[in-house]
């Protein structure tokens, strides 16, 4: 359980508030959805079309975003948000993305071995032997448990791996 990364900052400090940024982002999302929703008929009140509810909810989201931005006075400064673990997080997400891209191409076991070797060997700088034991052990054991025992369909790669 980690808390938020916001450091408590007094209400008098000057600068961009985190809730102003959040409110603006929400308003942008609402506007984009509203714009994209033009493709679907809104209908009328007696026969609401597929575009009716997305439009209503996007409008509500826009209003909430505006109110959050307007009430941002007491929120912490955006610069005070602690993103210290962000770089590691981005590396992890990229590694996962590569593994997901490879999943149906080289199979579950090989892609998980590659992901674990990278995470343990490169990110966590563990020694080669435990890294390989965990990587191979986890991949083959989880495959056996899910694919063989629980009959969950998992992709296979070259040589049936």
């Amino acid at each position, binding site marked *: *359980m*980690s808390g*938020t*990364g*916001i450091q408590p900052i007094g209400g008098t400090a000057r600068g961009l508030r*985190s809730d102003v940024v*959040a409110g603006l982002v929400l308003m942008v*999302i609402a506007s984009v*959805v509203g714009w*994209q929703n033009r493709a*679907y*008929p809104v209908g009328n*009140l*007696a*026969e*609401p*079309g*597929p*575009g009716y*509810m*997305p439009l209503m*909810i996007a409008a*509500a*989201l826009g209003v*909430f*975003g505006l*109110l*959050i931005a307007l*009430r941002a006075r007491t929120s*912490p400064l955006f610069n005070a*948000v*602690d*993103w210290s*673990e962000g770089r*590691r997080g981005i590396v*992890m*997400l990229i590694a*996962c993305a590569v*593994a*997901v891209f490879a*999943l*149906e191409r080289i199979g*579950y076991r090989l892609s*998980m071995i590659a*992901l*674990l070797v990278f*995470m*343990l060997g490169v*990110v*966590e700088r*563990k020694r080669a032997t*435990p890294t390989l034991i965990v990587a191979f052990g*986890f991949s083959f054991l*989880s495959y056996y448990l*899910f694919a063989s025992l*629980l*009959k*969950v*369909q*998992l992709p296979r790669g070259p040589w049936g791996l």
Partner: protein
Amino acid sequence: MDGGVFANLMNGFSVALQPSVLAYAFAGCVIGTLVGMLPGLGPLAGISLLLPATFGLNPIVAIVLLAGVYYGAMYGGSTTSILMRIPGEAASVMTCIDGYAMTQRGRAGPALAIAAIGSFVAGTLSVVALMFLAPTLASFALRFGPPEYTGLLLMGLFVLAYMSGGSMLKTLAMAAVGLLLGMIGIDAMSGYTRFSYGVIELADGIGIVPVAVGLFGLSEILLTAGQQTPPAIQRPTLRQLIPSLEEMKLAIGPISRGSVIGFLIGIIPGSAHIISSFVAYGIERRMSKHPERFGRGAIEGVAGPESANNAAATGAFVPMLALGIPTGPITAVMLAAIMVHGISPGPMLITQQPDLFWGFVASMYVGNVVLLVLNLPLVGLFVNLLRIPYSYLYPAILCFCILGVYSVSNSVVDVWIMLGMGAFGYVLRKTGFEPAPIALGLILSPMLELSVRQSLAMSGGSYGIFFDRPIAITMFVGAGVLILLGLKPLLFKSKDWREKVGLEDHV
């Protein structure tokens, strides 16, 4: 109800005590306890990851297994909170305060025992309440039409916003994001495919599992990866677990109050098990003759929240089983597990699937006993898991996330969604937004859209239909009252109850 509650319950026990069902209940409790102990894997992520493994099982066994994981995780979370001040899941945060203080005073054993006994008592009392309330509520819900469902769903969202620890506006904004995500895919009434941008997999909509695993599992790993190995762990022996008579006496009141509060909060939508533990702690501190003991190892500070979060876990099943409406992401995933087997949740579930309902109820009694028997003597064994360095554990959890999400529908698109949601959840938590309403909005979205559009079609386009019908108007008035209560701290400079119990930051 045909046959009376007792006869139905006996029928349920005949299902729950079948060796195969019993074995899965046991397995669920063990897995849940382990999941609850691991930081980075809460009950939701645990249930979501196990969901694909239940597809091949019969629906009763599937729901018994997942329910075992759910309340096993509730128990497991308390162990790490008490012994290491690490809440395995959010509902155990309050247990950390006095539980860990007791550990520092050498009273870890009684703290664990009271947590387990409180959870057992609260869990059992709540199942009794569930047994009587769910069928009654289900018969009442047969009077519900689309306007009533609209009122109920909207009121649920406002209750969530009001009860959540964070800002009401932020919670509603997150619920709106979830509702918008739920609009992706084929519109059930017109057949239009919305916001899918040519991705065939999106035509079916976004599933709850990738969103839940991303928002709760992956984002937690992104937040906690890189943390140092946890500190040394105390392992109390069986003899050291026995609480003193004084501690038992002090715990009786908080366990009773926690059971009632937890169950009542559990019925209403939101992260009930989390909120209930905060509320129970606040109430115990307020009622205590010696509130200064709280934070320094008061047994009431362990008994109250632990009983409340377990009672809330059971209370959450009432609307799920009686109305087919999930009160949170956990019950939504469990509903998905039932629906995979072609069973439609809703008011007719109890009469059409008595074996499922009563078997499930009986399995909860069994599960509570299993957990009590399992948790106390085996606590020393379970904590060994925490000796695994987190740097080895989190990459494995990451792989489990990918495996679990992919297995639900053999779709890589789902895994991409999970990664996106993980990054989104990380940013949200960093900026003080709670991700749970997104998951709830996503689940309620199709139901809400259908009921609103059907209501408007029924009335020929008049919003008056929501205010003509007594049940619907009651719910809309309830929602209105909650909005006004949420605005109160803005108009008057008084603290509201959430601040008083420690859930700061309102409106």
